C-alpha cells in the first residue's frame, strides 16, 4: 500500500514537470488572424493528453521496476553473449565477404557496405587508442584527413596511384600521430580530450586556409580511382579497362565491388594487427596503461614510448582509411573532416564497448547502417536513431561487448566482467 501511494506521488510529480514543459510547447498555439495579427490560442485537450500519458508511462515504469524478474548475474549474460559471439564473428565475416556476390543486389547496398566498412576500420583504429590504451582522443578525424590529403596531393603533384600512396598515407598519418602525441603525453582525461579536439580542428583549419597547397574550401577533385593490377574501372570501356580485359559489359557495380573488397581487406588487416598486438607485450602494456599508469612506471615500462606507439598505430590505420576515402570519393574538401566525424567514430567505439573488436563492428553497423536504411522515414529518421542509441546505452552502459578476454592463461580462459575493467583516465 505504501508502495502505491509512493508510486502515485512520484508519477504526479513527473506529470507536473511534464505540465510545466509541455505547457508552452503544446498548450499554447500561435496563429495568424485574418487581419494578419498574431493570435494566441490554447489547446487544453492536447496538453491534458500529453500530461496524462506521461503520468501513465511513469506509473507503468515504476510498476515494472517493482515487479520485474530478478536479473541473472551480469557475467552469465556476458558469457551467453560471448558464446553467441563466437558464432557471430565468423557469420558476420561470411556475410561481409559474400555481400557483393548476392545476385541482383542493388549498387546502393554495396556502397552502403563500403561506407560501413570505412567506419568499422576507423572504429578499430581508434579502438587501439581509446579502447586499449585508454587515451581519450577526440581528434581522430585529423589522421583521416592527413591520409586523404596525402593521397590527393601525391596523386595530383606526382601522379602516383592509390596503391603507391596507401603506405605513404599511413606513414604520414603515423608521423602526425607521434607529432600530436608528444605535447599530450603528460595530459590525462578531460585535458587530453580537449587538446586532441583542438588538434583535429587545427588540421581542418590549416587545410581550409592553405589555399595554394590544398585548394582550400574548393577541395581537390579528379583523384584517381584504384586500379586492379593496372586495369581501370571505366564506364567507357576501351583498352586497359577491367571490362575490356575480362570481356564483360562495364557496370558501375564492378568498381563499387572492387572498392568494397579493398576496404574489407584493409579493415581485416587492422583487426588482425590489433588482435596480434593485444597478445604481445606492447598490447599488454597499453592495457596496463589504461588500468594504472603509475604501476606501469614502477615496473619499468616507458610510458612515453608506449603512448606514442598507441597514437602512431591508431593514426596509421586512420591514414589508410583516409587514403581509401579519397580514392572512393574522387573528391575531398575540408567539409568531410569536421568534428562530427571524430564524434561518430568515438561513438562507435563507446557504443561497441571500448576494447572489443566485435562490438565496434556491430556498433558501426548500427551507427551508420540505421540512418542510411531509414532514409524513407524522412524526419523521423534521427528521432528513431536517437531513441535507439539512448536505449542501447541504458541497457548496456559499457557498450555492446564490455567484457574483456585475457590475452594469456594457464588453464581455461575466463572472461573478465566489465565491472573489473578500468575505462582509463587518459
Amino acid at each position, binding site marked *: 500500500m505504501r508502495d502505491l501511494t509512493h508510486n502515485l506521488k512520484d508519477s504526479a510529480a513527473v506529470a507536473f514537470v511534464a505540465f510545466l514543459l509541455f505547457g508552452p510547447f503544446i498548450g499554447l498555439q500561435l496563429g495568424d488572424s485574418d487581419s494578419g495579427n498574431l493570435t494566441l490560442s490554447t489547446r487544453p485537450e492536447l496538453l491534458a493528453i500529453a500530461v496524462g500519458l506521461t503520468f501513465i508511462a511513469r506509473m507503468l515504469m515504476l510498476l515494472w521496476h517493482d515487479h520485474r524478474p530478478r536479473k541473472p548475474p551480469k557475467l552469465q549474460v556476458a558469457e551467453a553473449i560471448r558464446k553467441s559471439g563466437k558464432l557471430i564473428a565468423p557469420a558476420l565475416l561470411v556475410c561481409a565477404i559474400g555481400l557483393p556476390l548476392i545476385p541482383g543486389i542493388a549498387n546502393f547496398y554495396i556502397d552502403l557496405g563500403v561506407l560501413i566498412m570505412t567506419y568499422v576500420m576507423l572504429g578499430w583504429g581508434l579502438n587501439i587508442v581509446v579502447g586499449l590504451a585508454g587515451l581519450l582522443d577526440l581528434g581522430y578525424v585529423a589522421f583521416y584527413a592527413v591520409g586523404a590529403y596525402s593521397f590527393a596531393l601525391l596523386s595530383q603533384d606526382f601522379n602516383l596511384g592509390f596503391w603507391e600512396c596507401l603506405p605513404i598515407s599511413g606513414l604520414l598519418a603515423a608521423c602526425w600521430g607521434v607529432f600530436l602525441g608528444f605535447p599530450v603525453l603528460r595530459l590525462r582525461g578531460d585535458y587530453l580530450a580537449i587538446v586532441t579536439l583542438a588538434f583535429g580542428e587545427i588540421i581542418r583549419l590549416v587545410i581550409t586556409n592553405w589555399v595554394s597547397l590544398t585548394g582550400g574550401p574548393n577541395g581537390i577533385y579528379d583523384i584517381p580511382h584504384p586500379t586492379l593490377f593496372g586495369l581501370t574501372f571505366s564506364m567507357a570501356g576501351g583498352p586497359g579497362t577491367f571490362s575490356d580485359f575480362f570481356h564483360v559489359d562495364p557496370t558501375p557495380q564492378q568498381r563499387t565491388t572492387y572498392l568494397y573488397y579493398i576496404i574489407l581487406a584493409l579493415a581485416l588487416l587492422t583487426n588482425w594487427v590489433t588482435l596480434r598486438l593485444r597478445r604481445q607485450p606492447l598490447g599488454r602494456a597499453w592495457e596496463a596503461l589504461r588500468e594504472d599508469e603509475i604501476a606501469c612506471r614502477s*615496473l*619499468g615500462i616507458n610510458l612515453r614510448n608506449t603512448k606514442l606507439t598507441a597514437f602512431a598505430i591508431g593514426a596509421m590505420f586512420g591514414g589508410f582509411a583516409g587514403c581509401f576515402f579519397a580514392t572512393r570519393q574522387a573528391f575531398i574538401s575540408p567539409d568531410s573532416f569536421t568534428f562530427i566525424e571524430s564524434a561518430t567514430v568515438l561513438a562507435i567505439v563507446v557504443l561497441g564497448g571500448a576494447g572489443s573488436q566485435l562490438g565496434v563492428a556491430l556498433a558501426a553497423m548500427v551507427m551508420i547502417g540505421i540512418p542510411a536504411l531509414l532514409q524513407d522515414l524522412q524526419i523521423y529518421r534521427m528521432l528513431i536513431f536517437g531513441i535507439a542509441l539512448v536505449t542501447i546505452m541504458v541497457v548496456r552502459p559499457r557498450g555492446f561487448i564490455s567484457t574483456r578476454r585475457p590475452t594469456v592463461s594457464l588453464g581455461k580462459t575466463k572472461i573478465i566482467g566489465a565491472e573489473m575493467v578500468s575505462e582509463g583516465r587518459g
Partner: protein
Amino acid sequence: MAEVLLRLDELTMRFGGLTAVNALSFEALRGDITAVIGPNGAGKTTAFNCITGFYKPSSGGITIYHKPGEGMLLNKLPGHSIARKGRVARTFQNIRLFGGMTVLENLMVAQHNELQAATGFGVLAILGIGRYRAAEKAAIERAKHWLEATNLIDRADDPAASLPYGAQRRLEIARAMCTDPVLLCLDEPAAGLNPRESIALNELLLKIREGGCSLLLIEHDMGVVMKISDHIIVLDHGKKIADGTPEQIRNDPTVIAAYLGEGDEDDPDAPIAESLAESIVEPLEDAT
C-alpha cells in the same frame, strides 16, 4: 662480509616550504632486510618515492651498487629506468594492480621489457616469427614460479580486482619480483593483513631474501619489523633519529621519545604522536 647495496647521501626533498625529508643518509646492506619506521608524516614514503624515482630529490644522492664499488646514481635515471637499469622494484601503500587483467597478465606486464626486446619491434612477433614464442614461455614459467611462491597459482586466470585484499598484497609483491630486482621496496606490506596473513608475509619476505634479493620496507606493524628486519632506520620529521639492529632500536631512548612525544614539550604534534604511539609502542614492548 656485508657490502653496501643502497646508499643515501644527504637526501633532501622539499615541497615548497615544507621539508619532508631532511639530509637523510643511510646504507642498506646486500642481503639484508632493512626497515624504515617512524611516526606518520615522518617522511618515510617520501624517501621511498625518491628512491624509486617517483620524486626527483631536491638535493642529495641515491646510489645503488650492483657490484661493489660500481655505483649507479638512481636520482639521475629517468623514472621508468629505475626498475629496468637500477633493478629496484616497489609496491604501493594503496595497492596498485591492473584490476581488469588476470593475475597471470599482471605478472606478464611486469616482464614487459624483456619480452618486448624479443618481439623485433613488434613486427616479427605479429608475423609469428622470431624468438618471441620462446621468450613468452620463459616469462610464463617465471610468473608460475612467483605464483607458487605467493600461493596464488590457483587464481592465475582470475582478474586481479576479484582477489581478496591479502592476496592482492601478495600479488603486488609477486609482480614486483617478476621485474627481477636486486632491491625490493615495500611500502607497508602488512597494512590491513590479519595476524595469520602477516605471518605468511614474513615467511614470503624471508624467502625472497634467501633468493638473493634485498629488501627495504616501510612498516607500522612492529610484529613484522622486529621479527624479520636485520637493520632498522627510524625517521621523525624527515630526519634520521636512530639507526641500528632491532635490539638497539628497541632500547633507544630517542626512538621511544619520538613515538611518545616525550622530551619535546614545545612540539605541537606531540599529542597526536602520543595517541599514535601507544598502538605502536605496545607491540614494540611485546616483542622484547
